C-alpha cells in the first residue's frame, strides 16, 4: 500500500524515489533522490506545527473531557466514498525534464569529452593517476555496453560529459554527486575516476567556473 501511494507522489511531484527496504528494515522510510533533499534556501513550510490543546482551564467549569470534532460518522456498512460532484482536476503527470522520454544517448557522445579531458591532463598529472582514471573509464564503457547501466545513469552521464566539455565544473561535480548518492550500486566502481577527472581538469582551467543550468 505504501509503495502504491509513494509512486503516485513521485509522478505528481517529479521527485524520483522508491519505497524503503521492507525486508530488512521495518517501517523503512521511502528513499528520495539527492536533488530533492537539497536545501533550496526558501522559507521552510513547516506546515505540520499546530496543536490543539485540551480546554481544561478555560474557565467554563465544565468537567467534561475535550469534545471531539462533531462530525457525523459515515455508516458502518461498506458504502462507497462520497463522489466528487465537480469534474476532478486533470492529473496528467508532469513530464520529467531529464529526458527519460528521449532516445538513449550514444556512448561515443559521452566518451568523447571524458577522454578529451583526460588527454588534456596527461601532461601535468602523474601517469599513475591518469592510468587509474582510464581504467575506470574503461570499466564504465564495459558496463554501458553490456547493458548494466540504467537509462537514468546514461542520461545523467551524458549531461555530465556535456558540462565537462563546456568546462562547467561545478555542474559536472553536482551531477557526479547525484549519481553517487542515487545509484551507488551501479556507479561506485568507476565514478571516482570521473570525480578525479573533473577535479584535475578543473585545476588546469581554474578561471572557467561558470555554473550554467545543467539542463541547457
Amino acid at each position, binding site marked *: *500500500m*505504501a509503495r502504491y501511494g509513494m509512486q*503516485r*507522489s513521485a509522478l505528481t*511531484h517529479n521527485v524520483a524515489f522508491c519505497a*524503503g*527496504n521492507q525486508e*530488512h*528494515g*521495518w*517501517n*523503512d*522510510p521511502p*528513499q*528520495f533522490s*539527492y536533488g530533492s*533533499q*537539497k*536545501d*533550496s*534556501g526558501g522559507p*521552510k513550510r513547516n*506546515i*505540520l*506545527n*499546530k*496543536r*490543539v490543546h*485540551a480546554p*481544561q*482551564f478555560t*474557565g467554563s*467549569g465544565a468537567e467534561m*473531557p*475535550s469534545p*471531539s*470534532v462533531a*462530525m457525523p*460518522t*459515515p455508516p*458502518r456498512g*461498506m458504502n*462507497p*466514498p*462520497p*463522489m*466528487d460532484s465537480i469534474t*476532478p482536476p486533470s492529473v496528467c503527470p508532469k513530464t520529467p525534464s531529464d529526458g527519460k522520454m528521449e532516445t538513449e544517448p550514444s556512448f561515443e557522445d559521452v566518451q568523447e569529452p571524458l577522454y578529451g579531458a583526460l588527454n588534456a591532463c596527461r601532461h601535468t598529472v602523474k601517469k*599513475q*593517476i591518469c592510468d587509474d*582514471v582510464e581504467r575506470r573509464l574503461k570499466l564504465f564503457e564495459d558496463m554501458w555496453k553490456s547493458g548494466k547501466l540504467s537509462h537514468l545513469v546514461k542520461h545523467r552521464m551524458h549531461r555530465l560529459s556535456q558540462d565537462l566539455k563546456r568546462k562547467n565544473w561545478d555542474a559536472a561535480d553536482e551531477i*557526479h*554527486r547525484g549519481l*553517487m*548518492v542515487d545509484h*551507488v550500486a551501479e556507479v*561506485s566502481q568507476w565514478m571516482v575516476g570521473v*570525480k*578525479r577527472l573533473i*577535479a584535475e581538469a578543473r585545476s588546469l582551467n581554474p578561471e572557467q567556473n561558470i555554473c550554467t543550468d545543467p539542463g541547457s
Partner: protein
Amino acid sequence: MATYQEFIQQNEDRDGVRCSWNLWPSSRLEATRLVVPVSCLYTPLKERPDLPPVQYEPVLCSRANCKAVLNPLCQVDFRAKIWACNFCFQRNSFPPSYAGISEVNQPAELMPQFSTIEYIVQRGPPTPLIFLYVVDTCLEEEDLQALKESLQMSLSLLPPNALVGLITFGRMIQIHELSCEGIAKSYVFRGTKELTPKQIQEMLGLMKPATSGQQGKPLAPHDAAAASCIFLQPVQAVDMNLTDLLGELQRDPWPVPQGKRPLRSTGIALSIAIGLLEGTFPNTGARVMLFTGGPPTQGPGMVVGDELKTPIRSWHDIQKDNARHLKKATKYYEALANRAAVNGHSVDIYACALDQTGLLEMKCLSNLTGGHIVMGDSFNTSLFKQTFQRVFSKDYNGEFRMAFGGTLEVKTSRELKISGAIGPCVSLNTKGPCVSDNEMGVGGTCQWKICSLTPATTLAMYFEVVNQHNAPVPQGGRGAVQFVTQYQHSNTQRRIRVTTIARNWADAQSQIQHIESSFDQEASAVLMARLGVFRAFSEEGPDVLRWLDRQLIRLCQKFGQFNKDDQNSFRLSESLSLYPQFMFHLRRSPFLQVFNNSPDESSYYRHHFVRQDLTQSLIMIQPILYSYSFYGPPEPVLLDSSSILPDRILLMDTFFQLVIYHGETIAQWRKAGYQEMAEYENFKQLLQAPLDDAQEILQTRFPMPRYIDTEHGGSQARFLLSKVNPSQTHNNLYAWGQESGAPILTDDVSLQVFMDHLKKLAVSSAA
C-alpha cells in the same frame, strides 16, 4: 498574551533564545518560589541567512576577569570614544580602528538588531577537517556491501581537502595506510590487549624512538602530521585507492561457531582511533565515525559475552543489578569520550542491527562530544543510507552544516549566576564570578566545550538569581546574559558568534501577574524536561516522576486561581494552561518511561532529546496529530483517542516516527480499490494528502524518521494508540454513553484523570 507571544517569537528569530521567564524575579527567594528556574534554550549556530558575518575581531572589555564583548547594551560616549561594559561597568577605550564611529555611523555590534552577530577571525593557519571511519566487518554479506557502498558514496560528499582515514575491526583491528600508489598496507592490533595512548602512538610510528634510557617523546606537530600522513590523507589524493580498498573489504574472516556471537573488539578499535587523532591532530576539528552491526563482545568495553544464550542486558537486568559488564564498559567509554572531548574530536555512532549494540554503554562518546547517534535495523535500509547522507548536507550557501571545536562561554550581569548547562557538551571547569555553587546539569563552570555542532544544536542553560530578598531592584532595571561561541566553520574559518540578551527585573511581590504573563510554557516544558532526563541518568525512574510531579503541583499552587479545597474552582491563566498537558505527555514519553524500550533505545531517544531545538523537542514530548477527511482541509486535532475516527486519516509526527493511520472506513475503501476509479478521484487525493505533507519532514529531518503506514486493526497502529491520551479505555467505555473514537486498552491514567488529581492536590490546604 499576544504581546509576549510576539516578543518571544522575535527574540527566538533574532537570537536563537527562548527563556522560561521573560521578566526576571529580582530576588533569589522569589526566583525559587517560581518553581521553574530562570533558564533558557540557546541555539548557538542558528541559521541566520540574513546575518552576514563581519570580518574583524570583536572588541573586548579590558577588565581581566570580564572580557565581555562589546554589544548593544553597552553605553557609548561617541565623542570621547569610550564605552562602558554593561556587565562590569568598566570604561574602555575603543581601538584605533573605531576612530570614525558616531551616533549616525555605528558599528554593527552596537545596533539592537545585531544582538546576535558573528565574527570571522584569524587564528593561525587553517586546518583541514578530519574524518576517521571505524568500520565493523562482522556483518552479514548484504549488510557489509550496503555499508561499503555508503562509505564509497560519502567520499564524494566530503569536503575535497578533508583528511580521511580507515580503521576496520572484528576480532582484530586493522589501521590502513592510505597512499596514492603501491601495495595497500595495514597495521594489525589484537582486540584483547588494552594499550595506552603512548603505546599506540609508538606502534604507529608517531613517536620519536626512545634513545637509551629515555622515554619516547611525541613528535613535534609538523613531524607528527607528516608521520600521520600515511593514515590520514586528503580525500582528493586518495579517493580512487580508498574506493578500491573499501570495495575489497571482506567480512571478518574469523569463523563464528554455532550459538556464538562474532568477536567484536569495538573498545580497542575506538581507543586506537582516538589515540591516533590525539597524537597527530589535537585541537582540530575531527569526527571519528563508528559503524557497527552488533555489540562489543571482546576486550575492554565489551558489553556482552560471545555466548548467544546470554542475552544482552535489559532494563530488568539493570534494575536487578544483573548486568555484569555495564559499569566497567561505561567507565571505559567515558574515559575515551573525555579524551576525545579534551582534544576537540567528536565521535559518531552508526549502529545498525536487529538486536542491541551497546548504545547504553557507548552513548557518552557522542553525548559528550556532540557526535551523532544513528540507530537502524540494517545498513541496507534507506533510513541509514539517507540519514548518513544528511550528515553531509549543505545549507543555503552551499556550506556544510557541521561545525567543530566549539567552546561556549557565558557571562552574566551581577545579579545572576550560571548554574549549569544540559546538552551535548563537557565542562571546561572554568571558574569565575558568574559561576554559581548550586549546580544544575553540567555546572561549576562558565565555559563548555561542544566538539561538534550543527545549526540545530541547542543547549539548555540554567541560572540563579543571587540578589537578596528586599534588596532594591537593580539600577537600569535589566539583567543581561552574553553567550560567546568560538568554533571552526566547515570551511575551516574560525568564527565567533556572540549573542547578548537582556530581560527586565520585576519585583515578584507587586508584579506577579506581569511575571506570570511573561511565562513561556513551551520553553519551560522543554527546560524542565531536560532537567528530568538529566536526573534520570543517575536516579531511579519513579523518583524522577515524583520530582516532576512535585514541581508541577507547586507551580499550580503558585499560579493557579482557586478557592481552597475547591477543586472545581481551579483555573490557570492562558500563559500556563498548556503546561500541565506537556507534563502529562512527558511523563508517558520514552524519555522517562523505560518500559517497552530496550536500554539502547532509551539511550537513543534521550540522546536526541537533549540536543534538539525547541520545536523538535516539543514534538518529541507531545507529538503532533493532523486529521484528513472529506469534510474540510487538514486540521490539527487533539492527541486523544477521540480523534481516531473511521472516516479520518491521521498523520502523527513523534519526531522519531511518522505514522499515517487510516480509519476503519477509509481502510475498507482503500482495500476495495476505490482510488483506482475515475469517479472517486477525490478519494485518491485524500489518500495522497498526508503523504504530501509528510514529505517535507521526510526529506529534511535528521535523523530520518521511521515511516509507518497503518490502519484500524493493524498491528502497527499501536504506535498511534500508545501516544494518544487514552480518554476512552476499556474501563470507562460505557460510562460516556455515545461511543465516539476508539477505546485504548490500557490502565494508564488519562489526561482528564491526571488533571483531576492535579487540581485536587493544588487546591488542597493540607499540601
